[in-house]
């Protein structure tokens, strides 16, 4: 591992000024991804800004929204009363991810900023446009069973110097994308807010960038506005083993129901694209309808029309379609 200087700021302002002073610096939160990246030589910051002592751990409900500090631990968020009562989908997604130990270390901000688990990204001997821009994508003609089926643009099969078919690994972000979460970001210019759907990027251009965070900016909190989804939401995760594995496919479904009909619907998919994949048309397709397996099947197949398989992951198209149906059935309580 390359040597680095260790810095420990006490305030957000101090942390931001350190990052502005040292462009080679990186923020360190829980470490569950960054320590691995540093051990493997994929990240080699010359200064490490340990932000764990900043006052950003608070989880609170105020006015019409739930605000979760960027340093709140995944395990604390998953068992917090306000999260369980108002946004149970988020708790369900968090508990579907990682292990007891990792959830005790990983923070909300770090979860947003974790890198892909594409094996070509982690293997320094192989090409990867995300790790080494312009070197090519090893997965396109390689082992791509777990890779993306939604490319949204010309990244795939277009320009080999910039293509990337890696998927975003987070469960938490899939639930938060369905819930229209806002990310609070601080930088030298002050505070700004961005919707989570606009926080992560597609791989079409510059796959080395996972997010639209500017250099030196710090995620300080996320905010979820109150909604009426708590009674009818479900997070379904499908993976190669029963627990402790990244999603092959996951579905976050959040519905509002009244009088046996669906009045509002949100959905995001995980494991299928470079960012949590929001299914935009679902609200139009379900609004005013009574839940039925036939309806859910139509809805699922509609979105999968734009999916495109690589050599090894055609199974994911059928799997995602089935997972959407199963998640909607669970959320609406029909058998």
């Amino acid at each position, binding site marked *: 591992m390359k040597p*680095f200087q*260790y810095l420990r700021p006490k305030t957000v302002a101090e942390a931001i000024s350190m990052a502005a002073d040292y462009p080679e610096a990186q923020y360190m939160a829980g470490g569950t991804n960054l320590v691995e990246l540093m051990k493997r030589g994929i990240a080699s910051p010359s200064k490490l800004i340990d932000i764990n002592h900043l006052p950003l751990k608070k989880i609170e409900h105020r006015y019409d929204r739930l605000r979760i500090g960027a340093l709140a631990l995944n395990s604390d968020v998953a068992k917090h009363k306000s999260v369980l009562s108002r946004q149970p989908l988020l708790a369900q997604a968090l508990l579907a991810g990682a292990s*007891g130990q*990792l959830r005790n270390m990983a923070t909300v901000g770090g979860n947003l900023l974790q890198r892909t688990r594409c094996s070509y990204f982690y293997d320094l001997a192989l090409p990867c446009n995300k790790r080494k821009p312009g070197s090519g994508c090893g997965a396109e003609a390689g082992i791509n069973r777990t890779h993306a089926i939604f490319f949204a643009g010309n990244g795939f099969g277009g320009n080999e110097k910039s293509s990337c078919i890696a998927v975003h690994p987070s469960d938490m972000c899939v639930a938060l994308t369905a819930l229209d979460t806002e990310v609070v970001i601080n930088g030298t210019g002050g505070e700004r807010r961005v919707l989570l759907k606009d926080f992560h990027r597609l791989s079409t251009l510059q796959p080395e960038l996972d997010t639209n965070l500017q250099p030196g900016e710090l995620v300080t909190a996320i905010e979820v506005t109150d909604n009426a989804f708590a009674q009818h939401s479900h997070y379904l995760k499908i993976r190669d083993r029963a627990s402790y594995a990244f999603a092959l496919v996951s579905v976050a479904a959040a519905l509002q129901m009244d009088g046996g009909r669906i009045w509002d619907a949100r959905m995001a998919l995980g494991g299928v694209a470079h960012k949590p994949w929001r299914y935009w048309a679902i609200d139009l397709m379900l609004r005013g309808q009574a839940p039925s397996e036939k309806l859910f099947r139509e809805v699922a197949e509609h979105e999968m029309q734009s999916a495109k398989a690589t050599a090894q992951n055609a199974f994911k198209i059928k799997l995602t379609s089935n997972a959407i149906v199963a998640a909607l059935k669970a959320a609406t309580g029909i058998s």
Partner: protein
Amino acid sequence: MTMDIDHDATPPDAENEDRRFFLKQSMLFAGLSMAPADFLYAAVAPDDGPVGNAVKVKLSLTVNGKRKRISIDPRMTLLDLLRENLGLTGTKKGCDFGQCGACTVHVDGRRTLSCLTFAVMQHGSKVTTIEGLSDGEKLHPLQEAFIKHDGFQCGYCTPGQVMSGVACIREGHAGSAAEVREYMSGNLCRCGAYPNIVDAILEVKKEGVKV
């Protein structure tokens, strides 16, 4: 600028240190030029921690109830600090990438992967390792239960399993076999002692003894 960590300034005698090391090295090479290669390597290998020019950082933390003050390379993980500097080799290095759970310890009461945290990040923390779990010669109830239920074969994953199992019970996640399996999924056992590990944890939970 920093809280209560002192970065050691470059020691005034750093250059002399380098020169002394160089001389020592040269003399060793001169004296041992006929020695076998392995022996040579061992003779000149640095003996005080990781190599490199990272500025050492002072660290104070509590391990198994004892306060430790150490000056370390910030690249050192908590796992390496425990094993290499403090001689607490009960905590095991399995994958070293947070995938196997062999390095599980408790930090401020929470089960944590010691391979995925730099030791400097634990400044001020209270760490408990497998060595700190038993009361002298008296084993912890979960250690006794692991023996009774044959919860291990080769034993390499066991310290991590036990630390994780104790946390699992304390967290209130040992209500059923299915729950134990889910909440212990971060600890892999290649010998496949899983059913016995689950039995051991369930028994301790059922007995209701303080863990």
